[in-house]
């Protein structure tokens, strides 16, 4: 049971932190339409966060709700993967982070729609439509930027290279993941990784980008609560009000 709660929280943390990052761009998108799309994705992810957290809180039965989980935990309690907490950078950085995440998310959520846990299956089914759209959009933009001007190509390639080391964590399973695989909930790592690599490779081919080596060294730690220096600042901003006025109703 503890493993399942931990697993649910990880999914919620991934969605919440990425949603927070995308929300930072509200009003700053490169075009009005992009601005709306980014905030739409942020809202989708926030909705998914709430479903993961609610289920986790229910299983935990310790009186924590979605808000407590989001606002009353510190950086080391968050188990999101390192990729989602990376800074927005330029638009190529933002969209590459999104594309790497969406590709994983799409295959991952797709696999969860067939998992053994009914509640998780429901969450996955609700999310899959959104995630399918996210992936379609971010893949499309990667192709446009990669196969755009020499400058956009260079920026997109730089983003691809820079964020690559954070992508290994999706497939680096620990005891919690393995327990969930054994319980028939989580998809096995290797097939998921193969799907991820194949899709990224397809899109990079179309975008005239060079895919970094799948065997490159990969950063890890997010799932264990060991984060990059960015998460603390993100949480300080996100949690400020609840920390200043704990327990206030809103």
């Amino acid at each position, binding site marked *: 049971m503890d493993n399942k709660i931990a697993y649910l929280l990880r999914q919620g943390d991934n969605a919440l932190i990425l949603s927070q990052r995308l929300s930072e761009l509200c009003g700053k998108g490169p075009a*009005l*339409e992009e601005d*709306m*799309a980014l905030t*739409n994705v942020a809202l989708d992810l926030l909705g998914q966060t709430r479903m993961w957290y609610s289920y986790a809180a229910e299983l935990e039965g310790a009186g924590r709700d979605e808000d407590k989980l989001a606002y009353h935990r510190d950086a080391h309690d968050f188990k999101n993967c390192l990729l989602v907490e990376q800074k927005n950078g330029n638009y190529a950085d933002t969209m590459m982070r999104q594309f790497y995440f969406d590709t994983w998310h799409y295959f991952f959520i797709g696999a969860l729609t067939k998992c053994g846990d009914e509640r998780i299956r429901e969450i996955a089914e609700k999310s899959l439509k959104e995630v399918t759209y996210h992936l*379609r*959009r971010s893949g*499309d933009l990667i192709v*446009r930027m990669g196969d755009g001007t020499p400058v956009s190509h260079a920026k997109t390639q730089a983003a691809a290279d820079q964020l690559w080391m954070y992508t290994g964590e999706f497939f680096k399973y620990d005891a919690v993941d393995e327990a969930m695989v054994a319980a028939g909930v989580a998809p096995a790592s290797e097939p998921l990784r193969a799907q991820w690599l194949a899709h990224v490779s397809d899109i990079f081919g179309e975008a005239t980008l060079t895919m970094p080596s799948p065997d490159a060294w990969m950063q890890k730690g997010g799932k264990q609560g060991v984060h990059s220096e960015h998460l603390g600042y993100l949480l300080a901003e996100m949690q400020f009000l609840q920390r200043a006025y704990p327990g206030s109703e809103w």
Partner: protein
Amino acid sequence: MSKEWPLWEVFIRSQHGLAHKHVGSLHASDAGMAVNNARDVYTRRNEGVSIWVVRATDIVASSPGDKDALFEPSNSKVYRHPTFFPMPEEVKNL
């Protein structure tokens, strides 16, 4: 050359709608992106829609100066307005 993306007009048919209605416009670099953007900007809250996008430059509008010649409905010639016929119940949406 303008750095601005071209303007597209967006027409949407809602789930139970019979025809596409003009809902607004947006900027996008090509048709594919215009459809994506239209989805984000105009269809977020109702599923099951059909979207048409068309380059604003491809639309030809009537001139306001031609209003009388084009739209004068000949109200004095009552035989031009076939409103005297009873319609069968089954005929909907006429």
